[in-house]
């Protein structure tokens, strides 16, 4: 299968500042691809280059088999975009905006639109000037999801939605995946990406630092284990791949690299397990480690990164 998006060595400068510094990204047709990074990492700039809004300074960018700058209008019939900051025309109603955008793309599916309006509980008759940020975002989402397109480019699409609507959004994306559509989902909400995405690319300061499936990335992270044993364990301390080990009598807590998991469990069961809690590696940890490992410490914006 060909790639819906393929970017290599993308560079974009705004005056003296370099927004993208050799970024690479490949999104396969039919997958939901998470595009992760803190604010200012270059996610939105990348999407704008993909939309032909910004012109790349260097690098190769292919979108749906075409050149996003040169073939912009033809390519845009086959994709729908949800901006991170949705601004709509104040004098139009939500329903008018949805229909207009759909018609200016590949066309709109009325049944799907009605279903989505119901599901997102959006009143299409209200003038967009009276919508809250969350409701403007819903307008953009319904317009994108009801459009007859192959590719969805979503830039932090849930930043204004409440938790209930985030769930609705996840259901809708799952449906899109089943329908065979390709989705590029930019986000800094890791649980969202974890729940939805087949593959993930992590960007930082204009470069891709990691890319792959969640399974491929898990080898980079650790499982947390908290066990109550019958006897004090032996031989744990010398195991490679075990971190932050704490043994208090028969209670053991530690973090284990995925490669050492099997051997660790073997030793624990050797001491007789009464109770065991294991937490799977979360993207949060993976992400934190990426920002922690380079400089040795979590960067100042680490708190914002994990939210």
């Amino acid at each position, binding site marked *: 299968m060909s790639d819906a998006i393929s970017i290599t060595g993308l560079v974009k400068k*705004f005056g003296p500042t370099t927004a993208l510094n050799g970024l690479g990204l490949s999104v396969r047709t039919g997958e939901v691809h998470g595009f992760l990074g803190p604010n200012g990492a270059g996610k939105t700039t990348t999407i*704008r280059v993909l*939309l*032909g*809004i*910004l*012109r790349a300074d260097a690098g190769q960018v292919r979108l749906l088999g075409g050149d996003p700058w040169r073939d*912009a*209008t*033809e390519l*845009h*019939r086959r*994709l729908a*975009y949800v*901006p991170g*900051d*949705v*601004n*709509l*025309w104040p*004098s*139009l*109603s939500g*329903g*008018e*905006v*949805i*229909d*207009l*955008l759909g*018609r*200016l*793309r590949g066309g709109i599916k009325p049944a799907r639109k009605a279903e989505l309006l119901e599901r997102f509980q959006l009143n*299409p*008759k*209200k*003038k967009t*000037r*009276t919508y809250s940020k969350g409701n403007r975002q819903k307008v*953009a989402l319904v317009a994108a999801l009801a459009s007859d397109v192959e590719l969805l*480019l979503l830039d932090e699409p849930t930043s204004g939605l409440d938790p209930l609507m985030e769930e609705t959004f996840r259901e809708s994306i799952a449906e899109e995946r089943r329908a065979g559509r390709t989705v590029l989902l930019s986000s800094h909400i890791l649980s969202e990406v974890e729940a939805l995405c087949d593959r993930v690319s992590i960007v930082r300061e204009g470069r891709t630092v990691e890319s792959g499936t969640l399974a491929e990335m898990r080898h980079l992270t650790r499982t947390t284990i908290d066990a109550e044993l019958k006897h004090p364990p032996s031989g744990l301390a010398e195991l490679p791949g075990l971190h932050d080990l704490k043994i208090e009598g028969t209670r053991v807590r530690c973090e284990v690299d995925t490669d050492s998991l099997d051997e660790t469990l073997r030793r624990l069961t050797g001491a007789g397990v009464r109770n065991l809690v294991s937490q799977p590696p979360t993207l949060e940890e993976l992400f934190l480690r990426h920002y922690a490992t380079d400089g040795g410490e979590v960067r100042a914006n680490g708190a914002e990164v994990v939210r």
Partner: protein
Amino acid sequence: MSPLTGTGKLIRLILRRDRWLMPAWMVWVALIPVSFVSSYRDLYPTAADRLKYAATSGTNPTFLAMYGPLPDTSLGGIVAQRVGIIPVAVGLVALLTVIRHTRTDEQAGRREMLAATVVGRHAGLAAALIVTMTANLLVALLVGLGLSNDLPAGGAFAIGLGFAAAGCAFAAIGGVAAQLTENAGSARGIAIGALGGFFLIRLAADTGGSDNALSWLSWLSPLGWVTRLSPFAHDRFWVLALAAAFTAVAVWAAFALSARRDIGLGILPARLGPAEASPGLRTPLALAWRLHRGLLLGWLIAFVVLGGIFGGIAEGVGDLMKDNDTLRDMFARIGGQKGLIDTYLASVMGTVGLVASAYAIQAALRLRAEEEVLRAEYLLATSVSRTKWVVSHLVFSALGPVAALAVAGLTAGLVHGANTGDIGHQVPRVLGGAMIQLPAVWVLSGLTLALFGLLPRIAVAAWGALALFFMLGQFGEALQLDQSLLDLSPFTHVPRTPGGDVSVTPLAWLLAIALALTAAGLAGVRRRDVGAA
């Protein structure tokens, strides 16, 4: 906490936000009447001159409609008539000020932020009204003091207090309108509509001359009360009690409405739109029409009014000149009475062309506004090409002025033709004088687009260009500026008609320049990044 808690703090906030705008406006309003005193003293130095004015211009129906009645044939009386349009401007600024500091803030969510602090629910409205009304009373004081140097103090303060009465009454109306709708634009529309209505009532009362069958109407309008003050003739200060009572009732109504509603909402429910787009809403042009139509309609109405006024005054221009021997001799050399009116018509059509350019710039700058709020990006992410998007707005910048000049020229021609009993002859001449401005207007459309395409960050500099061309046209010759400087303005090159010779060469040049600028702008837009930066 009382509903007025925090009013003092909010007053200081308003004074801080308006610390430049408000004093500048007050001083400007106070200076106009003072400047009129010296210019009308020069123009009508003797009692005989002033009687002539009273018999001609002072009773011309168009003048009466615009400025109101001439209370007295003294110098003060003439000044009192000629400042007659100022209460409308004062009222407009007052209502806009109140709405800006109440509903606009509320719509932007700033009031919600304040409501969370120690601020009573009426404090914002009270602060806006107090500041606006105090400013108007200060204007009254300034006008009164400024005029009483040269004129009797009673009439001087009657003029000043007339301004203040209009300002306070429409500040209160603004306060009421701000409670009615969720949207500041609609509130402004309602309040300006009320101002327009009251102006029309005053106009209808006065245009037929003193003591006509409709004169009583002026008692129904705050703007009518201002004229009934009759400065320098009767100085009827008791009329101010009417204005005070009206203001008090409107203020009471604003607070009563404010007490009945939730923050962020209006008394009137927000209007709903259609759930689905009409079948025609499927192109960038259809979208642009939705975005431009309200503004365009507003401008067209303004152009009809402008044309009506200019056409209505045309015949009276001769009367005005009868008062003044020097001016009459000057214009007689140009071509006598008929030449005089033609010169006047050609000159006011130049003004209409400048105003049409303002619309052309505003319509073209819509592109930049759409880009700045990222709506352009959103639209360009669909199958709309950059060229189509730009053209969809450019159509309004280019064709809006065609419609505007046509209605202004047509109205002016019809009114002037009706006055002279020669409609068939006048309409094509005056209309031609209006339409011939188009190539110059298009130069400004093209200039705006070129800036937008090549230097988007300073696209608003197009307004600066218009201001420069306006100054060159109005004061260039009086200041005896060099011809090469005057030639900078496209309007310098528009042939003067009716009455002058029309040569095609300058028009063709203007057209070529407009096209070149447009092409450069389009090429720039196609090449550059789109975005807010």
